């Protein structure tokens, strides 16, 4: 049943994806009215699916890859909605919707989720670790979205292209969103990594640090910090900030993919 709800959510998110694609072809108006309610419903079904899955398993479980993907997408959508309410704009969706769609779609495909039951995953520290890391990711996603939007808007203003000037968001607002989402995500990411480290030290000793997944995670954290630092010190915006955010995003994808290379972060089925 959770899978059914998730698939319904995916269907709604597909509207978001379509909207993003249409926007690129400058036909976004076609869906502008329905996209917000659609992804809103998507979020509700998504939530139902997550809750039901958790109840079904009887506890919070991070062991399923599909479940984790679904959860990450959910957190990203929640962060998106926080900014949607705060700034009355769904423009960020252009970038967020496709990411969320891909994550939930992959998650919903799984007929038999690979459930791994490792004693390591029963600790409540795991809960803190995963929830925080995912929120940090979500902040990064939104910031990445804002960077891309900033770049597009800046290009439009410089090219004096009137079509893109119709965007309701000002450069300043996009900039604020990008910065605030970074600020929002950073502490979560930091504490998430600390929680993970504590767990890993307890289990594997100080050597856990040499694991590729962990290394990549820390590199991502440093890039995250760099993003904030360049902004504080020299007010990096636009192209340079977008490049850096893209870099952070790519590393984040790498971290995600690195599960298979990891010894520490891999939990073989028992």
């Amino acid at each position, binding site marked *: 049943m959770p899978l059914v709800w998730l698939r319904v959510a995916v269907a709604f998110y597909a509207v978001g994806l379509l909207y993003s694609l249409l926007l690129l072809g400058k036909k976004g108006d076609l869906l502008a009215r329905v996209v917000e309610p659609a992804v809103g419903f998507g979020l509700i079904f998504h939530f139902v699916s997550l809750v039901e899955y958790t109840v079904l398993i009887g506890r919070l479980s991070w062991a399923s890859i599909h479940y984790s993907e679904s959860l990450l997408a959910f957190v990203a959508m929640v962060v998106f909605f926080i900014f949607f309410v705060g700034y009355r704009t769904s423009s960020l969706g252009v970038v967020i919707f496709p990411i969320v769609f891909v994550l939930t779609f992959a998650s919903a495909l799984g007929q038999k989720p690979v459930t791994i039951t490792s004693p390591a995953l029963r600790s409540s520290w795991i809960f803190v670790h995963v929830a925080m890391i995912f929120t940090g990711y979500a902040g990064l996603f939104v910031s990445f979205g804002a960077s891309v939007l900033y770049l597009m808007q800046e290009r439009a203003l410089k090219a*004096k292209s009137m079509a893109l000037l119709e965007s309701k968001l000002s*450069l300043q607002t996009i900039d604020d969103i990008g910065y605030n989402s970074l600020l929002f995500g950073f502490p979560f990411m930091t504490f998430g990594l600390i929680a993970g480290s504590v767990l890993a030290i307890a289990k594997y000793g100080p050597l856990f640090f040499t694991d590729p997944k962990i290394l990549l995670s820390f590199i991502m954290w440093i890039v995250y910090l760099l993003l904030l630092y360049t902004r504080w010190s020299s007010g990096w*915006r636009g192209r340079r900030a977008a490049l850096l955010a893209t870099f952070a995003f790519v590393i984040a994808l790498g971290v995600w993919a690195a599960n298979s290379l990891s010894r520490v972060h891999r939990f073989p089925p028992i």
Partner: protein
Amino acid sequence: MNLIVIGVNHQTAPVEVREQFAIPEARLPEAVKCLASQPGIEEAMIVSTCNRVELVARAKEPNADLSGCLQEVYGFDTGPYRKYLYEYRERDAVRHVFRVASSLDSMVVGEPQILGQVKEAYATARAVGAVNSQLDALYSRAFAVAKRVRTETAIASSAVSIASVAVELAKKIFGDLQGKSVYLVGAGKMCELAARHLLAHGASKLYVGNRTFERAAALAKKFGGEPISFDQLYDTVDHADIVITSTGAPHTIFRREHGEKFLSRRRNRPMFFIDIAVPRDVDPEMNKLDGIFVYDIDDLQQVVASHMSDRRVEADRAEAIVQLEVDKFQARLQTLDVVPTIVSLQEHLETVRQAEIDRVRGRLGTLTPEQELAVEALSRGIINKIMHTPITTLKSAARESSESTTIVDIVRKLFNLRDARKSEKEESDAELSAKSGGRG
């Protein structure tokens, strides 16, 4: 009301033809007088602008032909130009007059000048006595319609001037202009206008730099800004988020290297340069720097032009308003058709009442003032009761155009009001102008 409009405009005639028909301002009173004095013409006015020349007339006969008058007014054979002329009558003419005044027929839809031009033409015609009753009513209504269109649609609200485009662009960059500062380089009129707009939209601080410090000081004082001497220009410009330049300098004042310096001092906070000088004050190379946006006068004009298409949408809404107003105006004209009949009915019954009172006065003997009043009230009460139904019927019939003439005829026949009919036209005119006068 036998209204006729004949003319040429930017859509029907090329400029060479419009030139032929254009009437210079100085000659306009004479031309209007000439038109109004043509046989068969009751009232007239002429609108002559660079995009249109229109003769508006109210004729005695419904099928009156204005082409003869055209010849008289212009003194040359207008025959060859016939294909460039448009002509509207009655309802279409009313609609056309409303559309012109509302700037819906303009080359740049929504441009504000046309209303002023029509008002001037109207004043001229009025001054020479060419407009007196019905055209008066028509035009006061047209001005009201124009105002309504202006307030109820965004036809004129999208950026019209360079100054408001500047504000709009600044908002695209900075969002809220609250707390943003503006730097004027040069103290020209355009600069001042743009600054006024920006300040009105929330910009809080103004700097004025000018070659002659006194002028800078004068302008700064006007807006509560800060005058800055020109040799400090490069050290202070980066204080501002928006820079408007309009100096007469023969070469660029701000170049790429300046921009780089500004950005590093501002820690990459964006800057918006509005260059309205020709030749330009800001090197277009600066636009390539991240965080600096440069718009010159041509770019601004291009934005103005792009708003024209937005106006088309609003224009459709405006057309709907005009249509509604034409219907209302026509309905009012029809009501006015029955007004003379109502008036003569009232007069007729009043005469009867007076005559009857006079007739029986001898037999009544001397009456106390109270009795006098009672007789007065009694007789008035009777005729008012009698008149009530016919008047209501007339008024409601007026709303159904097909019925009104029949009912008017019946009432006139029933009460034998035929004698009054010949003066109907004059009365109707007087009524119309009285009403329109009352509405301002």
